[in-house]
């Protein structure tokens, strides 16, 4: 950043410091919805800090310097509540610089420097966040001034690791809208026309006994009885059998989802064992090397001195072993493919798949979309998993969609964060985007969803989607394909239903992937799978700006509260756990919050029927575009700067279009009302004129009355 820019920075409003004014209607998406409570809800002021219902100040530290990467150091008071980290500058003129970060976004807290470190601001705390930023606070070096606040932070940011409960259970605000009622599985299935001849609702999983990560209510082929379902569950990884996600209103082609079949290998001889062992252990070790690198990379990030040497040594060692392991995997794989050993079969599973195919009279084929790259799918055989062989499943065609696993995605996002925060490396911008591969992964997911849409819409063929466990990539694909196929999901309510259904009820492991309140920041189960899906939705929004009822701000708000732990929506892994923990009664739903202020999240350019007042059919909007087919080309897939670069105040947003359109739409509404009023008056008058006997009084007289 050059000199000239830095002077501008001081003037420009700083997005970290959103307060009431910047959260008004017309600032679209950049604002952080995390702090929007100041603008929307009834704020409670405790001292100089605005708190939510159920929020308490738990600790504070004076004389702290916040080292803002953009505006420079700033002195003030740091407070910790059970919900947020709050920093207020002592300098009154810098009130813009109030910082309020929910503890839920904290991924890791570290001490920087020691009591004897030299240099200004070298002693303090660094907070690493899940939302693509790091916060650095400097403390005075006397009296262990950081100790108290550090311990408080540790405890409050990671309540689950300290046997405390999450903030969502203390939060008690009442909203006029009840978000827990947004999604009713029966109503949603009925909307799609289930029960019908071919599909019916089953409550076999009412007690979550058949599959503990699935919802209580399933839609399955009507011809399948409970025994068959149980038998299929035994053959599918974690009992996640194929159930209905979406059904085409006219062609009855369906999207169903499940986990991988437990194919594995049968009759292994000694040599086979060796090779499978090679593949499996090769992959495991490779993975370890890889995680090791990531871990060390993170630990030594920022420690330039001897860390470099160490990092380098680790690095080369790892490259070497990585190559060895890669070789093992490779030769093992060649052997397996060469010998083509078949795995186990399940007649019940095959029959069940046939039933799904038969439920669609239009096609004699079923596409099984395996979201993984074929190599990963093969490797899974070593663990007893695998994929459907086309020999065993008649009329089924298997397609691999080449979407990588959660570890690759996590690493990709880490690289992206390095590129976007704190400073954007201007010379390496494009090469950095390319090297992160993030957009390529987005492209793969979009392309996969487009393939599903193509099969369902254009070929009227049913599609079965799975990956390994059927809760990460599968959810991404089915939810995205449904969004493209069904305009209902592109409305605000429909989108909430979509998330509730495809992500929450089908058991995407939010707790594991996000790690709410858990201090194990390098846990291998963490991954930005849901974030990636929201990015895909944003890409769709970008490509079809008039097709969505909601705007970018909704997506950013959802991402913010994915981490914030203020609402119960994204807590826990499965529906079963949520029922057990009584989430619906003990916490608030994010949708309550959003639907209470829904005008903030509406897209003024939306060209279709509103979900908010479905009875109001008089608005002469045209039929919405039914199917969106995005182009999965990097020429069109853009980096979501409003999300990934949003802490950087120099990144400008394209708000004016929305603002201006909103103004025009408001003007239109004003005029419509005025015209309606004038027309009504006019009609009343002419009616009176018509009724009035001409001789008794003049029209003029009447108008005066």
């Amino acid at each position: 950043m050059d000199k000239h820019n830095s002077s501008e920075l001081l003037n420009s409003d700083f997005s970290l410091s959103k307060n009431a004014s910047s959260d008004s209607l017309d600032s679209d998406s950049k604002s952080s919805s995390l702090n929007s409570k100041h603008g929307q809800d009834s704020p409670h002021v405790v001292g100089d800090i605005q708190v939510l219902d159920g929020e308490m100040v738990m600790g504070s530290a004076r004389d702290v310097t916040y080292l803002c990467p953009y505006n420079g150091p700033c002195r003030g008071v740091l407070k910790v509540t059970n919900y947020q980290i709050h920093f207020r500058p002592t300098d009154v003129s810098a009130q813009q610089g109030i910082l309020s970060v929910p503890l839920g976004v904290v991924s890791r807290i570290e001490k920087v420097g020691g009591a004897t470190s030299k240099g200004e601001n070298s002693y303090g705390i660094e907070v690493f966040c899940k939302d693509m930023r790091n916060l650095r606070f400097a403390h005075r070096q006397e009296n262990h001034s950081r100790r108290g606040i550090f311990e408080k932070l540790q405890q409050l940011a990671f309540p689950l690791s300290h046997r405390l409960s999450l903030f969502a259970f203390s939060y008690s605000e009442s909203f006029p809208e009840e978000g827990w009622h947004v999604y009713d599985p029966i109503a949603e299935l009925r909307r799609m026309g289930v029960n019908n001849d071919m599909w019916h609702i089953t409550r076999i999983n009412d007690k979550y006994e058949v599959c503990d990560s699935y919802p209580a209510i399933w839609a399955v082929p009507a011809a399948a009885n409970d025994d068959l379902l149980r038998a299929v569950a035994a053959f599918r990884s974690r009992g996640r059998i194929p159930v209905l996600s979406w059904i085409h209103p006219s062609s009855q082609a369906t999207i169903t989802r499940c986990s991988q079949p437990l194919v594995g290998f049968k009759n292994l001889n000694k040599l086979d064992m060796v090779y499978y062992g090679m593949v499996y252990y090769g992959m495991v070790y490779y993975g370890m090397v890889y995680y090791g690198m990531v871990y060390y990379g993170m630990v030594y990030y920022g420690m330039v001195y001897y860390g470099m040497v160490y990092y380098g040594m680790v690095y080369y060692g790892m490259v070497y072993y990585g190559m060895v392991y890669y070789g093992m995997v490779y030769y093992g794989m060649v052997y397996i493919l060469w010998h083509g050993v078949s795995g186990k079969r399940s007649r019940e599973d095959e029959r069940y798949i046939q039933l799904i195919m038969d439920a669609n009279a239009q096609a004699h084929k079923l596409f099984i979309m395996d979201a993984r790259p074929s190599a990963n799918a093969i490797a899974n055989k070593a663990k007893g998993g695998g994929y459907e062989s086309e020999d065993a499943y008649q009329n089924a065609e298997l397609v691999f969609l080449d979407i990588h696993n959660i570890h690759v995605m996590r690493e990709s996002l880490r690289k992206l964060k390095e590129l976007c925060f704190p400073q954007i490396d201007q010379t390496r911008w494009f090469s950095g985007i390319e090297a992160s591969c993030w957009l390529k992964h987005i492209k793969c997911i979009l392309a996969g969803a487009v393939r599903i849409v193509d099969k369902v819409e254009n070929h009227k063929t049913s599609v079965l989607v799975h990956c390994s466990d059927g809760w990460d990539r599968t959810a991404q694909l089915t939810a995205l394909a449904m969004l493209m196929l069904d305009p209902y999901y592109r409305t605000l309510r429909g989108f909430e239903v979509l998330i509730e259904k495809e992500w929450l009820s089908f058991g995407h492991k939010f707790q594991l992937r996000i790690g709410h309140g858990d201090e194990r920041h390098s846990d291998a189960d963490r991954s930005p799978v849901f974030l990636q899906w929201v990015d895909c939705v944003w890409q769709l929004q970008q490509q079809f700006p008039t097709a969505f009822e909601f705007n970018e701000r909704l997506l950013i708000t959802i991402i913010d509260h994915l981490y914030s732990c203020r609402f119960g929506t994204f807590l826990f892994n499965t529906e079963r756990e949520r029922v057990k923990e009584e989430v619906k009664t003990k916490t608030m739903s994010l949708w309550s919050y959003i639907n209470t202020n829904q005008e903030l999240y509406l897209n003024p350019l939306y060209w279709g029927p509103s979900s908010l007042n479905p009875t109001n059919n008089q608005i002469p909007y045209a039929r919405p575009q039914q199917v969106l087919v995005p182009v999965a080309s990097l020429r069109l897939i853009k980096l979501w700067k409003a999300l990934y670069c949003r802490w950087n105040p120099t990144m400008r947003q394209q708000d004016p279009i929305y603002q201006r359109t909103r103004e025009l739409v408001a003007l239109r509404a004003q005029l419509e009302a005025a015209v309606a009023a004038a027309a009504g008056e006019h009609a009343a008058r002419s009616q009176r004129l018509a009724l009035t006997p001409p001789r008794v009084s003049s029209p003029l007289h009447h108008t005066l009355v």
Partner: protein
Amino acid sequence: MSGSDSMVKSVVFESAGTGIDPKRSFANSSIDQGRLITMALVHHAFPKRHHLLFAYDYREPYYPTLPADMNMFLRPADWKKELERCECPHWRITCINGTSDGFMPTAGETLIVPSSMLDYSLIDTARLYRAGRVPVWVWGRPDGAALLRSGETLQTEASMTAESIFLEQVRRSHPKLRQPRILYLCGGQAGYADAVTAPLPALAALHASYNKLLDLCTPTTLRGFWEQDSQYYSILDSSKWLRHVAGCLALADEAAASLDANDTVVLVEGEGVDYCAVVSCLTQLLLDPHCRTISGFQSLIQKEWVALGHPFCDRLGLLTPTNPKDQANNTERAPVFLLFLDCVWQLQNQFPTEFQFSETYLTTLWDCCHNQLFDTFIFNCPRDRELAVSKFLYFKKRHYGFHRDFTARDLTLLTHLTTQSVENEGEALGNFVLRPVWDWGEQFSEQDMSMFYNPLYAGGKLQPLSQRMSRSSITSMESRLERLRPCAAPPAVELWSQCYERWLLPLDAAGAGRVQYHIYNVAVLDQIHRLKEKMVSLSIMSRHSTGEAEAGALKRHLVPRFYPFSCSRAQDAPTTLDAMQVSLIDASQLLDSQSLLNAPD
């Protein structure tokens, strides 16, 4: 035949840049036909002399209908008008460049210089500048700061002194006598440049950069398309085009910031006809809302590009050198004007409500640079244009006894010609009419032209609601000079999709793209308009029973992404998916070397 094959290839490639569908080839036609078409194409697409350009052949009569508030900068009076518009009293008009003492051969007859600068000292000083390009005034603010553009000085002792004397005159033209700020845009004087943010490339480098971009945007096969796609960002980066765009924006922002602080700015570059024009125009767009209207923008181009002599003919490569070797190392050719339009598009992208014209307008303007029908973009300098007109008049006089007395200026020009050459070109010149491109009605229907207007433009009669409510009319003068502050960092600069990618069929989709903003807002504006009319009719003709049509539904027609340019299939045809889209995504490319097969799931 092989020779002509390669020629065909070059024809195809050439046309790609100018907007003809590059997918056509001669694979299916017979050999003779191919040759015939090739010959015709070569003849008309690669004219070797200026008088072979289509503008000389075009026989349609021309009736000028330019908007009244457009300034063509042809006569001294036009410049006077501009001086008055900018309220700059400390500068004077000199017409000396139009006389036999002219020192700046590539500029028009009118120049604006400091009032205190005498003509004879101008002539003296001009000898020390490249191409005689002394600093000339192009824009100013009422409070004194002015924008000047200039060529580099020759590297001699005398020129240093002359330059400082000239700059002293410039300083005195500022009412507060402030030292002018000098911005070196490009070239060898970086030695004493004070703050060059991002030096702009030499013309040859710019041309090479454009060619790389062109390659990226004109894949010849679907396979090529997806192959490029897999490494899109590195190809884009290696073209450096967006960096050059960002560089121009940064320089313009810097110049605008100085002018905003009431400092005079002098832009300096080689011969002062290329990047000077780009940066100077952008600076004015940032500062002067008038330039952001359509007629203001057209006046701006007339002033900076046409009147001050940007060599369009050379830069666009309108004439093909007879010797193919020259063609290869033609250093004059460079898409400077496109670079400018791209920068304007970036500004539009960042400030969507500030411009009266739309991106379709800019794209169309770029297309018009190549149709060789209008005089605006086919000459190297105003003098060439005058020469062409004079030749035509001379010819008419000789052959038809055309009654018009030559001015002294015409005669001066004609003395440079031998009679012979006029005779040769006479036939071609027989119909030559100056036909500015700005008469859009010559090319487009009303409906087409409606695409040129930005429905989001707030500077016109429709003020933003919030502004109308909060601001009183007194502050309107202040807001007139409120400058735009663009973000010139590379991440903020995007590829101008409509211009470069509009012929890429795989990218097209109904209901997609930026054009939807346009269509939607036009529809809303239309409704507002009709509602207003209805209000009026309701209030005036309150006695009449209303039998009129309703204010109207939002008529939606689904337009494709690159509307109005796309050559796409029927709109409602179901989009079948080519398997290419997915099958070519090579899984191995998704993985960096470290992460391959890292773990079973």
